[in-house]
């Protein structure tokens, strides 16, 4: 019985991230539009987009290979599984011990690897420019994420996200310099990984931003739906990650029962709303950077992460 309940809760988390992800993106878009005094699309627009894309036929380039056709599924799967492993409303879920924070970061790397390959598959210049820039950004952003993960793990004495969340909830954390450093580092890395302003502009469908959208330019129909969906889930993943590490309030523990879970979900939704507001305000108040300014920007995150780790190596109390 308990096993079935565990499976159910894990399944619930997977369904939850899938259902809420487009809403989060819709919310960010809506708030951004309101900040610019526009009406903005409906909150449900991302769902409608996905639905429309799923019904459309796929137009494949003549020389697209099997890799191009499986990549959207691989990308979506890897990101969805990673999102299912980040605690959202409850810690200590059934599969949470099968991959720790480092594995989650690497799983996102798997998704990126295949997406970048897909960008090269058709052999167009836009796909190539997107892939090569994505890998350049990732070559700084991924170490930054890992260093942030190191700092958190050193602080909590574990690389398990559930355990880190529990540690953050405990009394003896307090305000720490290293936590501040990690917060900024994670924020910058999250912006870079999700192709948000100032790294990339998610709102354009022009190729002028030349990173994420250029890479997926050749996709259409259900394949594009998978990739768009993966982008929604990835944004949600980073929001949950920040929430789980820096605001683990209201999270249920495994086996707490349905009421605690419901409270956990409510708390989670509030945190997401907060994250959407912060992201929207940040994005409207900053301009996009030139591509070759980016390494400095993301490099800051890497240095902050390294600094955080160094501080903890020197003394556990900072």
């Amino acid at each position, binding site marked *: 019985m308990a096993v079935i309940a565990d499976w159910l809760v894990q399944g619930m988390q997977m369904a939850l991230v899938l259902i809420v992800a487009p809403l989060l993106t819709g919310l960010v878009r809506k708030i951004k539009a309101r900040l610019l005094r526009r009406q903005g699309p409906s909150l449900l627009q991302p769902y409608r987009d996905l639905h429309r894309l799923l019904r459309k036929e796929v137009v494949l380039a003549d020389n697209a290979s099997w890799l191009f056709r499986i990549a959207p599924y691989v990308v979506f799967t890897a990101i969805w599984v990673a999102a299912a492993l980040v605690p959202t409303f409850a810690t200590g879920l059934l599969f949470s011990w099968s991959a720790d924070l480092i594995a989650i970061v690497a799983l996102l790397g798997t998704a990126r690897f295949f997406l970048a390959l897909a960008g090269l598959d058709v052999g167009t210049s836009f796909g190539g420019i997107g892939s090569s820039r994505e890998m350049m950004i*990732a070559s700084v952003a991924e170490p930054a994420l*890992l260093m942030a993960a190191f700092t958190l793990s050193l602080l909590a004495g574990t*690389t398990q996200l559930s355990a880190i969340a529990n540690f953050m909830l405990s009394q003896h954390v307090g305000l720490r310099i290293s936590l501040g450093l990690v917060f900024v580092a994670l924020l910058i890395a999250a912006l870079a990984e999700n192709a948000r302003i100032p790294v990339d502009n998610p709102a354009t469908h022009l190729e002028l931003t030349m990173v994420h959208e250029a890479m997926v330019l050749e996709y259409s129909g259900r394949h594009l739906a998978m990739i768009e969906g993966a982008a929604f889930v990835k944004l949600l993943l980073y929001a949950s990650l920040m929430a789980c590490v820096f605001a683990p309030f209201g999270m249920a523990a495994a086996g707490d029962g349905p009421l605690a879970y419901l409270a956990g979900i409510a708390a989670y939704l509030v945190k997401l709303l907060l994250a959407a507001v912060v992201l929207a305000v940040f994005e409207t108040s900053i301009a996009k950077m030139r591509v070759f300014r980016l390494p400095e920007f993301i490099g800051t995150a890497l240095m902050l992460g390294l600094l955080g780790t160094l501080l903890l190596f020197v003394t556990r109390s900072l």
Partner: protein
Amino acid sequence: MVLSVLLRAMAAMALTGVAVIPVCRRHGTGPWVYGTVLAACSIAFAAALGHLLAGAAPLTLTLPLGIPWLGAHFRLDALSAFFVMVVNLGGAAASLYAIGYGRHESEPHRILPFYPGFLAAMNLVVLADDAFVFLFAWELMSLSSWALVMAHHRAEGTARAGYIYLVMAGFGTLCLLLAFGLLAGSEGAYTFDAMRAGALPVSLQTLVLVLVLLGAGSKAGIVPLHVWLPLAHPAAPSHVSALMSGVMTKVAVYGLIRIVFTLAGPPAWWWAVIVLIIGGATAVLGVLYALMQNDLKRLLAYSTVENIGIIYIGLGLALAFQANGLAVGAALALTSALYHVLNHSLFKSLLFFGAGAVLSATGERNMEHLGGLIHPMPVSAATFLVGCAAISALPPLNGFVSEWLTFQAILISPDLPQWGLKFLVPAVGAALALSAALAAACFVRAFGITFLGRPRTPRAVAAAEIDRSSRGAMVVLAVLCILAGVLPGLVVDALSGVVRELTQGSSLPAQSGLPWLSLIPLSEARSSYNGLILLVFLTFTSTLIALSVRRLASHEVRRAPAWDCGFPDASPTTQYSAGSFAQPIRRVFGHVAFRAVERVEMPEPGSLQPARLHVHLRDLIWDTIFAPIQKVVAFTTEHLNGLQFLTIRSYLALVFGVLILLLSGLALWP
């Protein structure tokens, strides 16, 4: 028993090499030779694996060979058994691959006699239990591989590669010779048993460490002694490149472990500093060099340099823990290093096989002339993709597990008391993270430019899939990469015997009894990873998605010209090339690492000249270390050259002068 089986397998290999000399020019000898070596390697592999898994006590054997009063000592302990396994696994895969691949060889008589000898020599190094056998085998390994590098001696660059390799190999052996001389002590005890028992003063111990790092390190390809590696490894035929990169560098790692961990006595903490700095620098520089290469095989060779760096990081951490008596940490770090040894031997052999397949299908190694090979070569492409994903440390494949273990070892190193290590280890961790991310970029580039996109030349259009046995070898290695990734617990358990031997009794807890075959190196509250669950989870989820998309979404697929934002260009030269893919990373890192200078030549307005982009990269290591040495040697030889053309009187005067000099030296000697 096991040891004599191993020695017989080795003798069989060596004899094959000798026996084939009279018939090696004859057509159709290749498959027989490779088949025999495959059989011998398989037997040796099975014997070593059995010994390792059984956890049997070390076996020794003395044969009346070599120096008359010394004899030849052999010993099979867990460490040797593990490396015999790695050597013969790589050897078996390369031989299987070569049964088919060898048919394309234009001059098989330059390869067949040396190939079995090369494998036998590598086995012999690992089994040696005295300095004489070790050095003899080491030199045999160097020379036979040199002969194999020179197989295509008329190809451009091979002669230079062979020359530099020979010089570096000679230098390396000289260093090892001196190291063993120091270890043997004043009594000249050349057996490893005597060296294990003897104790050296700290100053000599340090000297041994430095000499071993120079000797074994130059063979493994640590920066800055790596210069020969990216020249020599690609110049050999592809199955030999796979052996050199996948296996011979591991034998060099074995040399380091054998001497530093078991013969040189207890380590000092700052040994770890040296090894860690070398490891971090090697990892990052190796992958940066790899990113700048257009030659597929040279790219793979530089990536070998990177992976040796990762292994050295693991070994450095192990030394740090061991010097401080932290046995658990030492066991974890050693496990990660040995795991990476196995992993790298698997995926680097696989990748070199893939490069060989590309080479035999198109005659090209330059990625700028390839492209679109995924269509004519689906099996090679799929297996190469597995290798690329594994070497980029992507879960759920094997490269990730060893990097994850290394990260876990880094995360427990705040326990180290020394300040130097406290500052160094986080920086090394950052270097490791950076090199993993750059490796992903490097292999997206390698796979994407070679196998994806549109063919860039007629040769790439005309490519065809390679023969069955070569494909078979690649599939076997790809499957092993996946297995070593999803069943990490079994590998860690198999390594525990080796680790116990090196750390005097401590190893990671047994993993195979854990539920769901998960990997828990320290404690469950601290960290755990489960490749199998992850793979099942991924498979299950992707099936679910595929089924629901099939059920709910439209099924229609239409083929059309590429969209490319409305301006598709028919010419394949408008695709992103290897050079353009590397450009962003060159802009970010190249300025520091290579003093990269880019110059754009724009034509005058109205002129029909094409615009040109010139990129100039400097190899700083060659320019600052090796070029000056080369200059000094050239200067001295040029000026001593005059000695050839003297008159008889001047020669007599010279002889007389030298005689006076020596006599006065003798007279003044106290």
